[in-house]
């Protein structure tokens, strides 16, 4: 009887009835939460008891030597690789381990790959159009029309990534740096909550690097951004918080100065470069 009374309470709002305006629940702070994650490939432990928390709106750099598990970590978050044990939460409502790749993508996790992969046969504009947050099922896609507000949104992103003059050119003719920006632009079109950016400045000129740094720092605050990068100069120029990965787990975490003075870190990573 008392249970019935509880269920019948008129001011009660059940979780599943609550409006899903923003499906990602960040009231408790972190937008991404990895706990005790383990992955091994044929006996090799790629990820070893990894714990990582990213706050909403944070810009975080992740560094580490080759084979530290940076890319595998990205694969786990985007659903490409399933961990053997551990838990991965997006906000405090979504267990990413139970979701498929497209579901995770539409939830608001965008990933930029190491090698820029844009659709070379399509124009810059069309690349952004496909990336736009929209109903991506078959028939809505078939009958989709280009509304003025979509066009404005695409032009806005084109402005941000500074490719406005190349709007109607096939993406195949872009330079390496331009392709990287187009990819970041494609991520932005999805209005992501969390951006995973894998080695954004590999192979870029100094000038292009500066512009990329500018672009990424302008994104933080609106989105949470996780950058995996090898280039220490670049990391120093953008990072507020740095996480050092080594052999699949977190070695150190803190500001760039704290991290670069940590004796352990110097030994495994910075030492190599010096």
């Amino acid at each position, binding site marked *: 009887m008392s249970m019935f009374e509880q269920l019948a309470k008129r001011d009660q709002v059940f979780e599943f009835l609550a409006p899903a305006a923003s499906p990602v629940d960040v009231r408790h702070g972190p937008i991404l939460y990895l706990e005790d994650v383990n992955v091994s490939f044929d006996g090799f432990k790629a990820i070893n008891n990894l714990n990582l928390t990213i706050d909403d709106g944070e810009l975080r750099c992740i560094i580490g030597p080759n084979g530290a598990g940076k890319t595998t970590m990205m694969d786990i978050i985007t659903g490409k690789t399933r961990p053997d044990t551990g838990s991965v939460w997006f906000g405090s409502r979504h267990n990413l381990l139970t979701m498929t790749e*497209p579901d995770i993508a539409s939830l608001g996790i965008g990933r930029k790959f190491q090698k820029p992969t844009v659709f070379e046969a399509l124009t810059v504009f069309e690349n952004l159009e496909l990336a736009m947050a929209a109903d991506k099922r078959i028939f809505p896609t078939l009958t989709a029309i280009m509304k003025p507000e979509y066009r404005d949104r695409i032009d806005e992103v084109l402005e941000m990534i500074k490719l406005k003059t190349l709007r109607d050119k096939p993406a195949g003719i872009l330079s390496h740096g331009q392709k990287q920006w187009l990819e970041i632009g494609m991520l932005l079109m999805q209005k992501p909550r969390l951006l995973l950016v894998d080695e954004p400045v590999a192979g870029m000129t100094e000038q292009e690097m500066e512009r990329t740094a500018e672009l990424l720092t302008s994104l933080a605050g609106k989105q949470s951004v996780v950058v995996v990068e090898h280039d220490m100069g670049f990391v120093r120029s953008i990072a507020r918080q740095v996480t050092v990965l080594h052999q699949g787990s977190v070695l150190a975490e803190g500001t760039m100065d704290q991290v670069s003075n940590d004796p352990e870190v110097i030994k495994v990573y910075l030492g190599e470069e010096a």
Partner: protein
Amino acid sequence: MASSQTWLLRPLQERSTQIFLGVLFSALIVVTFLHLFMPQDSALHVSAYTVTLLGKYLCYALLAVAVDLVWGYLGILSLGHGAFFALGGYAMGMYLMRQIGDRGTYGDPVLPDFMVFLNWDSLPWYWQGFDMAWFAFIMVLLAPGLLALVFGFLAFRSRVTGVYLSIITQALTFALMLAFFRNEMGFGGNNGLTDFRDILGFNLRTDATRLGLFIATGIALAIGYIICRAIVTSKLGRVSIACRDAEARTRFLGYRVERVQLFVFVVSAMLAGVAGALYVPQVGIINPSEFSPLFSIEIVVWVALGGRATLYGAVIGAILVNYAKTVFTGVMPDAWLFALGALFVLVTVFLPKGIAGLLQKRKKAQDDDDPATAQEATA
């Protein structure tokens, strides 16, 4: 409401589609005129034989368009589209068999001749309903569509693509060929279905019916072309190209790649089925040789010669190759396969984008000469 209508009609505003439809309909009108109004002994007279031959080419053209849709825009090299073509053909053939009625050699009002010959005493369940035109015409779409749906669902869900998919499609059509060769299947074995009399009450052996079938094929090709064009110019078409070039990337954008592939594959199979259904009454026979793997490979050669991912290139390729085939097999039958092989090698080496690529190159050269567009490019 408006949006769902405009996407299908959008191709009509395109210049390339307008040109294509203009050429196609002019050809239909000219052939009809020359057939009907030129005296029999005139050099310009088009005989009923030629009309039927042209109708056959148009069926092949529609089939090539269907293959280009999946190969050119989706990157799925199907070496089994002959199977969908033949299934559409068999559905039509079954209707035509039932139309014979008691005029067959054995005079059985219900059973086709080959069933009487095999001592069958009743019609198998899957032959029921084919005496009704509407049912048979739905089956023309449904039989290839369902096969493509089941096959595609299994293949694309397990992410089978590239060469492996091509080999499986080849195996599919080969398996169907072997099955249809068996008398027990109830499709006439290796003789297939033939000796047709009427279609929708019109006698198939009159010139007027043949002309009607030719025109119907032309219209079917036009509609098929517009449907394909509507798909490839829609956002879904751009998603298809994205799947073709970077499948994993497309998946990360949140598109269900396997569903896009399945949808386009099923549409393509249905178009191939329609092509087969229009082919059968014009050539007067359907037998398991249409399932042969070689035929499916030949279709791909037409598309490659005409130019991939243009649709009109597929039409040009299909018509040219089949015209060449008609001429060659008449003059020196043994040389045809060598000629086809040589043509394929030459085009691959010198015209990697096919005949359509040649047309595009010329158009581009013209645009570059045009000062207005040149200025735009530098601005």
